[in-house]
């Protein structure tokens, strides 16, 4: 019945477990899977262990779970299962190993910690059953050894947590690999653990007691070294302190070393620890020391413990409370005995290093007894003390509790040894002694220390390699491939030498492989871009490597491609690259000048200093120094050539690529070119070409301008490029270049250069034929121009553009122009006059330089001056200054009336009238221009103030003396007036006629004007009648020309002329009738049509004349 119920219960459990596992495997919640699995573990590990085998595989399935927690559970399950039955490990070893190398750090750590129990339990089991092991079990054991070595090497890990676990694991290893003594204080749970003394035989197939102990000591030493390393983290240090205390309590053979280590920790606190971290470390140490004090072990170490506690800041009271008084008295005796035995046993165990250390400490203790030595030491070190006490020191300093005591001197000696370097004792000892003896100065001392340290590290490394056969054995004999077995690595104190590693590699690998490796490495470095950016230091190194890599064939293109993949972000890399190349050139030049210097010194028999010879490459022994230097010089020259070509190539390729880009808005080209150290000829040409680009010329030219301003060293070359553009026939490019030039011209440093250039070009114009320089400068221009041997308009213009732009800014330049003008050929003069308008207008008539020119113009430049005056007055009233200048000119130097024309409106009425006869003699077109100016026709001048009004002008024309000007010219002139009907209106003409009639004698052309006026304005006829009647009163018949006109006029106004005719004396009337018989007929008709009364008023004589047909 009972058996039945058991069976039932097992079946129930089976069912329950199956159900839980099923649920777990289909659940997608980590927590559900975890809970179920834990439940299963409860059931099959603790409750019904006999069921374990049934479900092992199912549970192990979960080690493939993606959840770290579930994997961790599997580890703990394995641990628990092995605890329950050690042999389980033989079934699970592969699973366990897999988990131990899981990618999840937390799973790894869990496995490391599980390994503590698994390893010691398995070790114990294997030791007991070593004679009965089958092959599979042996293999498992080897695998475990492999895993053990792997974990033990993890003090080197980058992960703090992993190192903590490793420290904890080392504790259990050291405990297993050392002897349990009767004094050992073993915690309850560890009572059953394995220790070396459980080995019955000294040596078996699998175990060697001494080797095991040796390995334990090795691990202990590694742990100590790690604990004392200066880069240890606070968590690791605290863990180490705990672990060391555990070891000390359970293995009294180590207690001395542990206490010494504690003391060393306190005297050499890792500098990386913060204040509160240090506090925590001390707390933990105090706790551990207290726990040692509470045990019976403290008996032998009262003085060490006291000094440690006092270093930790305990008050004497506290120390007395922790260390019972009776023990401390009693201890001294035991101490002496034990120290002796300790020393004896230790001597065997300690390696040579430790012995030496002891020796050194002893010798130091001896020397520190001497007051003189101590005084010397204090004095020597005084020089190294900072002026102010550091905060850290003042916070941490505690007065030495027992100054001058044997313990204190000893601990001081120990500190000195630690400080100087622990390993090379022989030479250090020597060194220490010399320090005491000869007051070594600080520098030498440091240097020596450094060398000693290097030496000692080497020794230490080789020793470690040679020493531990057991590791080698296990690593050779273990079959597992997945595990790294490099236990030989010691945790600290090793120097890494690249050559040691790479030499071997290089010998083994052929060139293509090497190239491949280079490529891959290079690619990786290229790809690190974003990751590295956060780390400034790494960033610098990366750039350096990339830039230097371009010296390998093909890598420069690769780097260029890389930069242009994302040029905005990576352009600085290109810049660094370029600068690197540039620096190489500079270095070469520096070397060259050093060499030249030396050569000079040699030639003159001067001494050459040692440091100067540093750069010299030896060529052989048989040659003289001079030859060596010359060969070096040749070499340097070649180098310079090479590097310059390299620089040029790099620069051009980058600039070209930048220019090729479609998107230019970011101005990268401009930014880059303004930052490069130096522009080569090719780069200048490239820039020149860029400036001609029809789309980008604006950007590029402003870049050029920026370069001119900022790059003083290459200013002239750059400026010449810009200047060349100012003579192009391409208007857009030229105008842009000119505008930039004008801007630059405002700056003093550029003005002279620009002016000189412009003036030189201008001067070409004084030559009869275009010079070859002109053509060379214009290589961008058409072939047509190149072929021309005489001046053509384009060429002439090309010499003028810039100069004419400059004139309005610097008026003085106008003189240069006038000089060239005089000497130039007719075609050039024509072009100059044509192009003069814009600059002259810009200068304006207030320009003193212009006025001066007008006043003192050189011979043969009349046309130029005339043109200038014309341009000045074309659209504005001439200024008084100008008028005076011209007036003087006219009066004194140049009686050419043409000069007056532009300033006519500025002259007085009298002057105008005086000049009129001369003026109207000029060609018709000029006269018309003169009248236009005087009458304000076709001018844009807003307020036209003419010295003469239209009436006055016409009157003046009539008054011109025929001696000065023939009548025909005057008639022409008056005709021009009549043509301007808008000005010479009916009213104006009326007024003219009235004024003229007052003049005596009547102007010859008077009647002509009357007739003209009548023709234009027939309505004037009544007015004309009155005028004519007045003429009769003036005895008009006495001036024959006018009388002729009078008669003509009478004919013209026929119906009305009877009034005039009837007023004539019969003699004159008769004359009229003789000239114009039609008038007689007309008058006859009229007389017959009037009333007799009216007729009666006509004199009979007249009537007769009329009647007498």
């Amino acid at each position, binding site marked *: 019945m009972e058996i039945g119920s058991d069976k039932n219960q097992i079946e129930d459990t089976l069912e329950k477990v199956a159900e839980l596992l099923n649920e777990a495997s289909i659940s997608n919640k980590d927590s559900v899977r975890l809970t179920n699995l834990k439940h299963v573990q409860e059931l099959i590990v603790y409750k019904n262990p006999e069921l374990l085998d049934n479900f092992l595989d199912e549970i192990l399935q979960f080690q493939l779970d993606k*959840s770290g927690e579930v994997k961790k559970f599997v580890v703990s399950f394995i641990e628990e299962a092995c605890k329950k039955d050690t042999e389980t490990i033989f079934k699970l070893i592969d699973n366990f190993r897999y988990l131990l190398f899981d990618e999840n750090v937390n799973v790894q750590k869990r496995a490391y910690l599980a390994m503590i129990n698994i390893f010691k339990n398995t070790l114990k089991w294997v030791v007991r059953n070593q004679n009965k092991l089958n092959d599979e079990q042996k293999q498992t054991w080897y695998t475990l050894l492999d895993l053990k070595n792997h974990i033990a090497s993890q003090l080197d890990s980058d992960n703090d947590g992993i190192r903590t676990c490793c420290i904890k694991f080392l504790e259990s290893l050291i405990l297993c690999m050392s002897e349990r003594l009767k004094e050992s204080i073993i*915690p309850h749970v560890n009572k059953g653990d394995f220790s070396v003394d459980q080995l019955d035989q000294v040596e078996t197939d699998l175990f060697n007691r001494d080797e095991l102990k040796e390995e334990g000591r090795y691990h202990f030493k590694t742990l100590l070294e790690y604990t004392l390393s200066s880069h240890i983290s606070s968590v690791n240090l*605290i*863990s180490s302190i705990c672990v060391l205390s555990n070891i000390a309590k359970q293995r009294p053979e180590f207690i001395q070393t542990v206490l010494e280590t504690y003391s060393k920790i306190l005297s050499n606190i890792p500098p990386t620890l913060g204040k509160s971290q240090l506090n925590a470390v001390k707390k933990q140490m105090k706790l551990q020391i207290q726990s040692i004090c509470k045990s019976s072990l403290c008996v032998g170490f009262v003085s060490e413990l006291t000094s440690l506690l006092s270093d930790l800041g305990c008050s004497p009271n506290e120390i007395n409370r922790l260390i019972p008084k009776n023990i401390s008295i009693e201890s001294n005796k035991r101490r002496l005995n034990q120290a002796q035995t300790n020393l004896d046993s230790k001597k065997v165990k300690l390696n040579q290093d430790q012995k030496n250390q002891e020796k050194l400490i002893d010798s130091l203790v001896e020397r520190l007894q001497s007051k003189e030595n101590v005084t010397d030491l204090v004095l020597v070190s005084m020089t190294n003390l900072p002026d102010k006490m550091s905060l850290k020191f003042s916070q941490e300093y505690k007065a030495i509790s027992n100054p001058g005591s044997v313990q204190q001197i000893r601990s001081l000696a120990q500190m000195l040894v630690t400080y100087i370097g622990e390993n090379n004792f022989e030479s250090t000892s020597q060194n220490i002694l010399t320090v005491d003896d000869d007051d070594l100065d600080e520098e030498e001392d440091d240097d020596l220390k450094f060398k000693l340290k290097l030496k000692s590290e080497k020794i230490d490394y080789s020793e470690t390699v040679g020493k531990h056969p057991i590791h080698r054995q296990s690593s050779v004999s273990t079959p597992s491939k997945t595990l790294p077995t490099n236990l030989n690595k010691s945790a600290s104190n090793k120097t890494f030498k690249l050559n040691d590693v790479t030499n071997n590699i290089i010998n083994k690998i052929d060139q293509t492989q090497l190239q491949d490796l280079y490529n891959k490495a290079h690619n990786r470095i290229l790809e690190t871009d974003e990751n590295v950016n956060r780390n400034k230091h790494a960033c610098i190194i990366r750039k350096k490597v990339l830039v230097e890599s371009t010296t390998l064939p093909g890598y420069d293109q690769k780097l260029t491609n890389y930069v242009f993949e994302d040029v905005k972000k990576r352009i600085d890399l290109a810049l660094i690259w370029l600068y690197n190349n540039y620096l190489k050139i500079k270095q070469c030049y520096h070397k060259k000048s050093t060499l030249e210097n030396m050569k000079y010194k040699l030639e003159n028999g001067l001494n050459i200093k040692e440091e100067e010879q540093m750069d010299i490459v030896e060529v052989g022994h048989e040659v003289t120094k001079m030859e060596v230097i010359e060969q070096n010089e040749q070499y340097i020259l070649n180098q310079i050539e090479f590097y310059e070509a390299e620089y040029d190539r790099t620069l051009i390729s980058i600039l070209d690529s930048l220019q090729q880009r479609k998107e230019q808005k970011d101005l990268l080209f401009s930014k880059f070119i303004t930052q490069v150290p130096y522009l080569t000829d090719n780069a200048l040409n490239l820039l020149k070409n860029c400036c001609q680009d029809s789309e980008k010329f604006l950007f590029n030219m402003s870049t050029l301008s920026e370069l001119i301003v900022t790059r003083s060293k290459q200013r002239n070359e750059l400026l010449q490029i810009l200047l060349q553009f100012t003579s192009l026939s391409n208007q857009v490019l030229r105008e842009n270049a000119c505008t930039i030039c004008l801007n630059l011209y405002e700056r003093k440093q550029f003005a002279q250069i620009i002016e000189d250039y412009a003036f030189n070009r201008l001067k070409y114009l004084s030559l009869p034929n275009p010079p070859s320089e002109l053509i060379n400068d214009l290589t961008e221009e058409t072939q047509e121009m190149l072929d021309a041997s005489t001046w053509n308009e384009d060429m002439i213009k090309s010499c003028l553009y810039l100069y004419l732009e400059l004139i309005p800014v610097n008026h003085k330049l106008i003189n240069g122009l006038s000089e060239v003008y005089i000497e130039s050929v007719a075609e050039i003069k024509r072009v100059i006059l044509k192009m003069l308008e814009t600059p002259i207008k810009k200068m304006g008539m207030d320009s003193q330089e212009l006025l001066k020119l007008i006043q003192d113009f050189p011979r043969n430049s009349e046309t130029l001056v005339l043109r200038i005056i014309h341009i000045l007055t074309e659209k504005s009233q001439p200024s008084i200054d100008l008028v005076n200048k011209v007036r003087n000119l006219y009066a004194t130097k140049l009686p050419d009336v043409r000069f007056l024309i532009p300033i006519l409106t500025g002259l007085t009425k009298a002057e105008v009238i005086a000049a009129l006869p001369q003026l109207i003699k000029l060609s018709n077109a000029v006269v018309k221009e003169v009248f236009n100016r005087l009458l304000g026709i076709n001018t844009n001048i807003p307020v036209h103030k003419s010295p003469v009004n239209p009436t006055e002008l016409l009157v003046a024309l009539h008054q011109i003396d025929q001696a000065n000007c023939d009548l025909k010219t005057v008639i022409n002139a008056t005709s021009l007036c009549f043509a301007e009907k808008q000005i010479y209106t009916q009213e104006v003409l009326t007024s003219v006629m009235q004024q003229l009639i007052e003049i005596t004698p009547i102007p010859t052309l008077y009647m002509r004007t009357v007739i003209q006026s009548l023709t234009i304005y027939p309505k004037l006829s009544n007015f004309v009648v009155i005028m004519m009647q007045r003429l009769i009163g003036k005895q008009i018949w006495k001036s024959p020309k006018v009388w002729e006109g009078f008669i003509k006029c009478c004919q013209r106004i026929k119906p009305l002329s009877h009034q005039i005719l009837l007023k004539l004396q019969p003699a004159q009337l008769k004359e009229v009738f003789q000239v114009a018989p039609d008038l007689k007929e007309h008058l006859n008709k009229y007389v017959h049509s009037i009333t007799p009364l009216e007729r009666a008023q006509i004199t009979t004589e007249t009537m007769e004349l009329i009647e007498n047909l």
Partner: protein
Amino acid sequence: MAYSESPPEIQPLRFAVVCSSNQNRSMETHNIFNKKGLSIRSFGTGKEVKLPGPSITQPNVYDFNTTYDFMYKDLSNRDKQLYTQNGILHMIDRNRRIKPKPERFQENREHFDIIFTVEERIFDQVLEDLENREKELNQPVHIINIDVTDNHEDATIGAFILYELALMLQNSEDMDNEIDEILQDYESKIKRPILHSIAFY
């Protein structure tokens, strides 16, 4: 497998907070951690639970086995006005809604990832207790101390300081590896010294 599609859940860290009497500072923190959904237990390290009494020299002392409920009723009976006025009743009332009675750290054998303490003395006591325990699991536990003054206001501030730190630790990718840096940064941020040690179960 069916569950392979969902993202892995973050395993909550097991937090504990320890003060002297498991009344004010630890319970305030317990309360906030609870509300924010972190895994939390609270403890005291004192021999007894001490609460302010009518004067400084006359504290109310209870055994750790006394329930909050009992304390509440007891104090209400003694001087309801006084204990209402100084906030003690309100505090105990809150505590009894969280858990039945105070717990003593030294008597608990649960395992944690992080133990917060609120006073250096308590930090020492916790370390000492952990040191004296039988160690079987070899699992590490971080002990972190930030001083918090024992009054209502500071307890609330302290609770938030601890919560913020807990959140950073919880959200770190590899807590063991990053804790050092997190604590150093946080120390300079809150301008209070942070003690940090490690022990093994």
